[in-house]
């Protein structure tokens, strides 16, 4: 965009800063923003530091021997010692890697399903436009306004009825019916140049080949956005995975629960100590943090373009 630099300017102009009142307000503004930044980030710092404590230190605070004898406990942000082994021990004892692996399987299948099913549907709506496609578009847009919880109970009944409960299938395929991704794809496909399509068609490409050989590779920017959203969304998803995978087992007897489902079972079953749950929270937020570090620009820019919160 031309003049982007200029649009970064706010209300204040360099020459406003000659006034002391503006200088002071600006200093206050920065101070306030730094405070807001601390509020936004402190919980993460707190939980990571808390994970280094042991259960007693976490509950009672740091032990202080008093000079006149006896002890006092003082709550403190920093742990007494930084032992990474404590995290590793929880990771191994709770076999957390199992839940990580389950989550990764769910994420991988969901990403493929998100790209293929939503992409093909949007391709039909944006490019092929068969008779009646407007009705489908209306139904898809319409379903966007209703909360997913509305249809959760009947969906769960149907999943059970066709015997897909206790498998990953409902989680994989469910992402293939995302109104949000279809709309994102449709908007992108509509902007693709017709000339490319037409020449590919003249070369004798069928619709399906056209999608996979031309449309899909040309849509890398939006594919990336949907991949990022789908990874983050599936990793964080909880309610349907909980209903479907609760108590489900792999053939060998290992649980099929995802990381989020495990986190929820911890609190309802009292089988983990506070500090184990704290460490599990840290494990569960590491992948989204990595994803954010890798794709920070893309994520923040697209939030604005789509105008819809994740």
């Amino acid at each position, binding site marked *: 965009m031309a003049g982007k630099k200029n649009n970064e300017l706010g209300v204040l102009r360099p020459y406003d800063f000659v006034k002391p009142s503006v200088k002071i307000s600006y200093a206050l503004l920065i101070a306030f923003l730094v405070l807001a930044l601390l509020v936004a980030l402190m919980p993460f710092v707190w939980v990571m530091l808390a994970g280094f404590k042991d259960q007693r230190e976490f509950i009672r605070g740091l032990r202080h021997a008093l000079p006149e004898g006896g002890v006092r406990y003082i709550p403190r942000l920093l742990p007494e010692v930084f032992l990474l082994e404590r995290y590793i021990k929880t990771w191994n004892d709770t076999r957390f890697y199992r839940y990580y692996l389950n989550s990764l399987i769910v994420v991988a299948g969901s990403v493929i399903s998100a790209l293929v099913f939503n992409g093909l549907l949007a391709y*039909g709506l944006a490019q092929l436009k068969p008779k009646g496609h407007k009705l489908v578009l209306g139904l898809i847009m319409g379903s966007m306004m209703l909360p997913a919880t509305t249809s959760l109970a009947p969906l769960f009944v149907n999943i059970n009825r066709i015997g897909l409960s206790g498998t990953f299938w409902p989680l994989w395929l469910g992402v293939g019916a995302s109104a949000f991704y279809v709309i994102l794809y449709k908007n992108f496909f509509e902007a693709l140049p017709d000339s490319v399509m037409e020449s590919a068609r003249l070369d004798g490409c069928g619709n399906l080949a056209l999608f996979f050989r031309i449309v899909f590779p040309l849509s890398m920017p939006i594919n990336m956005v949907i991949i990022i959203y789908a990874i983050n969304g599936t990793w964080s998803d909880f309610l349907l995975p909980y209903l479907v995978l609760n108590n489900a087992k792999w053939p060998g007897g290992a649980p099929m629960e995802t990381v*989020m489902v495990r986190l929820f079972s911890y609190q309802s079953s009292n089988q983990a100590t506070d500090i184990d749950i704290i460490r599990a929270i840290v494990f569960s937020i590491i992948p989204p943090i990595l994803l954010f570090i890798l794709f920070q620009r893309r994520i923040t820019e697209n939030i604005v373009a789509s105008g819809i919160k994740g």
Partner: protein
Amino acid sequence: MNHTGWGARPTRDGSWHRLKKDLGAWLIMLPGLALFTFFVWLPLLSAIRMSFYKTEGMRITEFVGTYNYAFILYKDPDFWRAVQNTFMYTLWSLLIGFVVPMALAVMVHETRRGKSLFRTGLYLPNIMPALATIFLWKFLFRADGSGGVNMLFQQLGFAPTSWLSNASLVIPVIVVIMTWKGAGATMLIYLAGLQSINQEIYEAAIIDGAGVWGRIKHITIPQMYNLGRTLLILQVIAVFQILYEPMVLTGGGPNNASVSLMQLVYRHAFEYGDYSKASSISVLVSLVLIALTLVYNSISRPKEV
């Protein structure tokens, strides 16, 4: 032969061609349509149907007309409690959740250095898994000294408080947590709005002698008004769907002081095993949401999504 596709004339030959082409297109869309049918449309229709029937476990037994609705509206005290709570959630989220992102956006927009640091940092809570952050906040708001918030309070010389078991504090506390998580994303949308204000308007105002406050009052705020109105409705729609927060933090307590409508749906369906009552509540909520969405659409019409 006419095989260029896009603008085929409906000649006798062409209409046959068109039909064949449409069929191919529908085939390509079929897998997606099947998934939408199974995961979205059919469950929605079943929910409406179930709300007029009696269910036993997963079986629909007999048609009961509007009995379920009458029960929910007249005999289920939890429902009106949840409606009342939703009203309180909305009120608090207007007081806290609406103002915070707007103020943050205006302030971040003014920064001359470190803008991307503020943007990124304030947005970070948004991409965290909802469930994990709610657990995190549950620890932070613990009643004893191990909770992070009480730890801070004690350092500052206040007495520790039992945040989540206090009926008059629990909803504001939940709204604070939701704002902490959601404000960054809304802020980015406001920021984009602020960046789209034509700079010449400011220049002209400055030439006319407008001071800093004058510029904010007469240009920035009016320009944000439309966006604010739109985001306000989106926020109310989101508040109607609160589920995880009360479910994990309080279980709806103390004494139903924080129970939400969607949580009632969950309770009826998966704790009491009464799918028909769950469906009738979700149909009622959906009607309100459809009304709100229609208002939203009529307001934000000029801007295509």
